[in-house]
């Protein structure tokens, strides 16, 4: 009885503190030893993704309905994945403790942020939009221009980028090592490491992000054989999607709905923003001027606005952008446009059907839970939106 009232007081106290934006206690946080949904815990203790696409046996793993997925980058323990979840939402990772990974990759917004271009640490508008993280564990290159080759490499980008989270390796390691809760949690997830280094941080962040898997949409049910999973309009849309008039599926190849290649589509920039040369800057190749990585379309309905700098407000605009003359939106640049860009001259019914089909790629059943309390005791400035599934 006594205990109960005490804890009520603590809760009220915590809530009050929380309202003032100060630090709150973070005791009793522990790491889950269970693998996330869709993952199997192997005998070696590591979590491995399971999907119905394992039933299929095709070459190379590209295209068509019943084809296997590309290899998933797994090999993480349940504890590492769960530690990554806390780190992902914790503003302690930024230089001034105001930005977390989740500030720009919000679970309630398709792991993007609803903005055309993301906003960095001093409220500065960045160059590009925040890509969705769904199924990011399958990708062989990351960032819009594909410059990182692993999730671990990627994580170190925004952490130490001045305009984004503006941290330093020394400060990151210092603030984590100073934190008693994090020391305990890292000790569970990485028992062999004596102190916390940036490598464990990026490893855990990669572990968590690799668990963001969306493979149980209505489209998937159709692919596995349920012909009633899609409505007639959606089935027509699917056929438009893979038709060689529209050619969407040539780059947004199922089952991931991306072929992971760079493509020059000549998407427009938002008004007033200068042309983004994309992968040309990384590769030095003129042919990649304006090239960006083909994004996945899974959960695409959740992450408007669209394209690398968010110039297109909704999917209707994206469809009309592609249902137009190639290169029409960027007239003043010499670009080697992708050869699949042709004006498909889709009629209005086809456009609506295509839009309906894109909605069938929604699936958030494995949406992770947002931590109620963070090990740092900090609060998120942009409170991540809770969805029905993540309410405790």
């Amino acid at each position, binding site marked *: 009885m006594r205990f109960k009232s005490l804890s009520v007081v603590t809760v009220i106290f915590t809530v009050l503190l929380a309202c003032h934006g100060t630090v709150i206690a973070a005791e009793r946080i522990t790491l889950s030893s*269970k693998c996330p*949904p*869709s*993952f*199997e815990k192997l005998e070696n203790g590591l979590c491995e993704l*399971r*999907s*119905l696409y*394992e*039933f*299929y*046996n*095709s*070459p*190379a793993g*590209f*295209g*068509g*309905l*019943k*084809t296997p997925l590309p290899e998933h980058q797994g090999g993480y323990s349940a504890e590492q994945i769960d530690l990554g979840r806390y780190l992902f939402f914790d503003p302690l990772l930024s230089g001034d403790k105001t930005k977390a990974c989740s500030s720009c990759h919000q679970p309630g917004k398709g792991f993007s942020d609803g903005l055309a271009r993301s906003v960095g640490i001093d409220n500065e508008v960045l160059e590009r939009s925040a890509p969705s993280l769904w199924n990011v564990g399958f990708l062989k290159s990351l960032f819009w221009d594909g410059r990182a080759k692993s999730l671990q490499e990627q994580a170190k980008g925004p952490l130490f980028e001045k305009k984004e989270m503006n941290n330093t390796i020394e400060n990151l390691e210092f603030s984590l090592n100073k934190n008693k809760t994090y020391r305990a949690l890292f000790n569970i997830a990485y028992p062999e490491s004596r102190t916390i280094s940036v490598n464990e941080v990026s490893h855990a962040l990669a572990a968590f992000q690799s668990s963001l898997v969306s493979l*149980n949409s209505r489209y998937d*049910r159709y*692919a*596995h*054989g*349920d*012909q009633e*999973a899609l409505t007639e309009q959606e089935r027509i849309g*699917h*056929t*438009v999607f893979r*038709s*060689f*008039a529209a050619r969407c*599926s040539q780059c947004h*190849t*199922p089952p991931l709905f991306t*072929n*992971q*290649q*760079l*493509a*020059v589509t000549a998407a427009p920039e938002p008004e007033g923003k200068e042309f983004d040369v994309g992968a040309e800057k990384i*590769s030095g*190749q003129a*042919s*990649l001027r304006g*090239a960006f990585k083909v994004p996945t379309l899974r959960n695409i309905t959740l992450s408007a606005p669209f394209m690398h700098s968010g110039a297109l407000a909704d999917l209707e605009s994206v469809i009309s952008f592609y249902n137009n003359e*190639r290169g029409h939106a960027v007239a003043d640049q010499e670009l*080697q446009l*992708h*050869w699949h*860009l042709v004006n*498909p001259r*889709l*009629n209005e019914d*086809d456009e609506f059907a295509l839009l309906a089909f894109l909605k069938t790629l929604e699936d958030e*059943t*494995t949406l992770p839970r947002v931590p109620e309390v963070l090990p740092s005791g900090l609060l998120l400035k942009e409170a991540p939106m809770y969805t029905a599934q993540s309410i405790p």
Partner: protein
Amino acid sequence: MNTTKSVIYSFMLFNILNICSINAAEILVNDGELIQDAIRKAGKGDTIKVMPGTYKETLYIDKENVTLSGVIIKGRRPLLDGENTRNDGILASGHGVVIENFQIQHYKANGIMTQGANNFIIRNNIVIGTSVYGIFPQFGKNGLVSHNIVSKVEDAAIYVGMCDNVDIVYNETYNSVMGIETENSHDVLVEGNFMHDNAVGFVASLVPGLPIKTAKNTIVRNNFIVNNNIDNFAPPGAIAAGLPSGVGAFIFAADEARFEGNIITNNVSAGIVFADHASLGASAPPDPAMDPRPDKAQVLKNVFVNNGLGPKDDIAALLEAAGIKKGPDVLSTGKGRKNCIQERSTITEAGTERWSECDADVTTVNVRSYRLEKPIESKALTLEQKGRITYLSVCTGCHTYATTIIGPPIAAVQATYKGKPEELVKYIKKPVKKWPGYPEMPPQDYLPDDVLLETAKYILELKP
């Protein structure tokens, strides 16, 4: 003992007969009906027979082992008409699809396209005037494209893309930008085809920017590659638009192209052209993950007559710069390694200084086909594995053992269905709202019964 055995045997026999009768359904489509309705009704292994008539549809086949077969009566075959407004004629993604005996014309994109389908057969179709490709299997292993007649196509009449183990045999292609093209494919046999009056007769290419990064081993044998001299009418922007006209065969960075026994005549630019990504036709940006050179080509014994009599397009410019007037039988424009020609003294060449003479005994005749002896089966997983994978990949999104995330905990399911996996399967296939406070579960009846039964058993035996 004996009686038991014979009972078992007769039971097995009965089952085999039963399976055969279940699997051999035939669905008839008459003129005026929709073919797609029949495809919708069809099950695995069914044959759809389509009577002569005109069908104005885009068809899609997403089921396995469906045969779509036109019925030809006194020369009349079913016509699929795109009227230049529909996108594609037939799209098929089901493994083991057979498409035969149709006439397909005037579609905005492709006539017949397979996507990710293995074990496909496309034969005896007439395809006319489709804007992109006539017949285009893409992402598939183990296929046959035979006895088709394809014409008036603005890109390749027959195009095999990112496929392995395909035979393209006994087809006629004409009045198209390319007669037959293989792209980023492996182990392809192109034999006995008549490729005439195209801009280019045959093309084997390694196209940059695609997820498959190599193109290897194409046998081009006993074909007639004749009079491929029409102007290139590919739309601007297409890679095909960069191809020079008047070429019998064009090898674009693909490795191990082997020519034997072909009749290659009256192609005004050149007989066979080998080019790398940096030279002719490179209208796509180079791909750093690819080897841009055509290597290990073999031009064995072929009949070359009257090629190169009036070079056109880029070939004309190239030859002029080198001071050569007549186009050669074999022209190499880029760097390639380990390429050779048999009986070199019989043909004309240009740019092949680094090529060698092939050994006299090299031949492809021992390869009769690149198709596989048996169709590719689905992955050999045990039922136990399939049940476990199904639970982990589908069910755990909503269910955990002890707690509630979306659906009820497995512990509660076990309490209700203990010892009754069949009952649980019934529920999984057709759920009714049963547990107050939980959303209704979507039906999972698209998986086979044996897999669902194993899934149910797995669920009932699951430990905390």
